[in-house]
Structures are given as C-alpha cells and as structure tokens.
C-alpha cells in the first residue's frame, strides 16, 4: 500500500464542508510559518501570537472565498499581512495620541528588545528593524518564507516591480549593516 499524505487542497475542501479536524491539520502545517512571519515583521512574540490566532480564525471564516485552493499560501499570508498592517496602523494611532514615541519615520520597533537572544540574532534583528515596514516585510517573505516575486506581489497587492525595488533596497541596506559585521567576525 502506497501512503500518500493529504494535500492542502484536499484539507481545504474537507474544511469547507465543515470538517474542523481537517482545518486543524491545515493550521498545524502553517502556524509556524505564519507565526515567524508575523514575529519578524512585528518584532514581538505576544503580538505575533495574537495576530496568528486572528489570521487562522479569519482564514476559517473566509475559506469559502478562496477561489483556488492551490493558492492557499499566498491567500493565507495576504490575510496575515492585512492583520499585521492593521495592527501597525492601530499602534501608530495609539502612539501618536499618547506621544510615547518620537514622531515620523517608517521604522517600527527599533527601540524594542530583540526577539532572538544570541549575538548574531541581535545583529540581524536590529538590521531588520532598521528597514522600512515594506522593505522588512518583502525581505521576510522572500528570504524566510521563500515566496516567488509573483506570490509576494499577490500577498502585498502591488506590482512585481514594486516588490523587486523594495527587496533590492532592503537587501542593500542589510548588506551595508551585516556584511561588514560578518567580515569583522561578529558571529
């Protein structure tokens, strides 16, 4: 007997017919990726966890709207992107009102404690937080999540050319910070 793992589109079909166990299995396959994506663009574990919960709830509620089950990953990350940026906007409004952070700038979380405790992780996390929100998210989707340019464009709802320009600008900024550190032996 040849064992064949259940594919995501099959699980999506079953979940659409009300099979919650199928959806739970789907979550277990994707939750780590979604959590880490949110962790790297928010920089906060607690927020990444809350957002992950929201993402999978929303995905379940709107699963019938997914036209092509084979495109589940970009669709799921699109929801994650929307949730994260909705949170960013809310946080910005709150911080403006409370005047707790300095005004202006695209960067977020620069002053936050680093998520990853080791030295190299601190360097990477700091370098990532110095990017703009758009650059950081594009780098995360490409480098850490391995999406194609077209898929990133779909997730971010922007042209491929915009994705490339954000990614290249982000990589150049990261190279300026990380490559000298690495060559000096900080690892």
């Amino acid at each position, binding site marked *: 007997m040849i064992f064949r793992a259940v594919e995501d589109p099959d699980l999506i079909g079953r979940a659409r*017919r*009300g099979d*919650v*166990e199928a*959806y*739970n299995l789907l*979550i277990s396959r994707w*939750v*780590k*990726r979604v*959590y*880490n994506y949110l*962790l*790297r663009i928010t920089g906060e*574990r607690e927020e990444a*966890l809350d957002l*992950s*919960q929201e993402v*999978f*709830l929303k995905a*379940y509620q709107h699963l019938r709207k997914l036209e092509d089950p084979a495109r589940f990953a970009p669709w799921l990350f699109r929801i994650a992107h929307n949730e994260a940026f909705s949170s960013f906007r809310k946080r910005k409004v709150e911080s403006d009102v409370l005047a707790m952070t300095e005004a202006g700038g695209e960067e977020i979380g620069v002053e936050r404690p680093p*998520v*990853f405790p080791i030295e*190299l*992780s601190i*360097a*990477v*996390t700091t370098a990532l937080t110095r990017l703009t929100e758009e650059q950081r998210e594009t*780098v995360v989707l*490409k*480098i*850490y999540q391995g999406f194609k*340019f077209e898929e990133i464009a779909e997730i971010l709802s922007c042209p491929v050319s915009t994705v490339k320009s954000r*990614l*290249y600008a982000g*990589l150049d900024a*990261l*190279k300026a910070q*990380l*490559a000298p*550190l*690495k*060559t000096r032996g900080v*690892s």
Partner: protein
Amino acid sequence: MSCSPFDLRDYILGELAADERRQVDRHIRACHGCHDDVERLRTTHATLLALRDEEIPQRIGFVSDKVFEPSGWRRVWQAFWGSSARLGFASAAVLSIALVAFTFYRPAAAPAASDVTAARVEAAVAQRVAAAVDKAVAETETRQARRTADLLSAAEQRFEQQRQADMQNVAERFSVLEKRYNVERLLMARNDSRGEK
C-alpha cells in the same frame, strides 16, 4: 554600481536562469568589484538565514476548541446537513412535494421580491391613472350634458316664443279679416236699406 550583465541580488536569490547564472559566474571571475559585491551579498544572505524559525510559544486556539464550538442546535443542524446522502434525499423529497403540490394547485407564478414591488407600483400607478381618466370622462360628460340641456332649453324657449309670435300674428290677421268682414257686412246692409227706400 554593478557592471554585471544581470542583477547580482537576483543571482544570490537564485532568481536567474541557468544560462544567466553562467554569464554572471564568468563575469565575477574577471571583475573584482562585482566579485566582492557578490561575496557581501552572500554573507548577508547567510547571516539572515542564521536566524532560525522559532517554535510557537503557545498553542493557538483551534476551531475545534470549546471556545469556537458551535451551539448544540447548530451541531445538530450541521450533523444532519453534513451528510450528502441526507441532503440528496431531502432535496428529492422537497422536489416531489413541490411537484405534487403544483399538480393540484397552480397558483399564479410568484414573482420575485423585486417583481412584486414593481408590480405593486405599476398597479398603484394604473389605479391612479384609471381614476384620473374616469374623473375626467365624468366631468366631460357632465359638462356635455349640461351644455346639451342648455341648448335644448334655449331651443324650446325660442320655439315657444316663435309659436306665441305666430299665434299672435294669426290672431291679429284673423281679427283684421273679421273686422273687414264686419265692415263689408255693414256696408251691404246699408246698401240694402237704401234700395228699399
């Protein structure tokens, strides 16, 4: 500024085709600037990848958890309709009932909700138009009848006046004739009395 035939960032990210990669490989062997740039990009990429994925610190709520569990009524509903066989049977039963009902009783085709509203508006408009037309016709008929009556009355009045005038004329002529006759008779009587004398 890179002088590579293709973008070195695409080269590092593995976005180039095999032939394009070979061209870049040849170029960076000859160009020290691009070679250094590739090395820095490679270091950057490797450093970024050193950041490992974290395990999620806490299990997120699954749809099957109690907090997301549907109500008892909903579970029964889902359990019943979750079966395609039951759904098929129920559909067939509803169709059969509809066919039987349609055979014995054929109501007017039920219009769609929007059609019903449109039909109501049309009926109201038609009713108003009909009422306005009836009113206008009644007013016209009344006006016409009154006019006819006036004309008839005037004609009768004229006829009566003419009749009275004619009668008076006849009476006057008769009176004149009578007077003439009396005069003639008196004259004849006078002439007869003179002849006897």
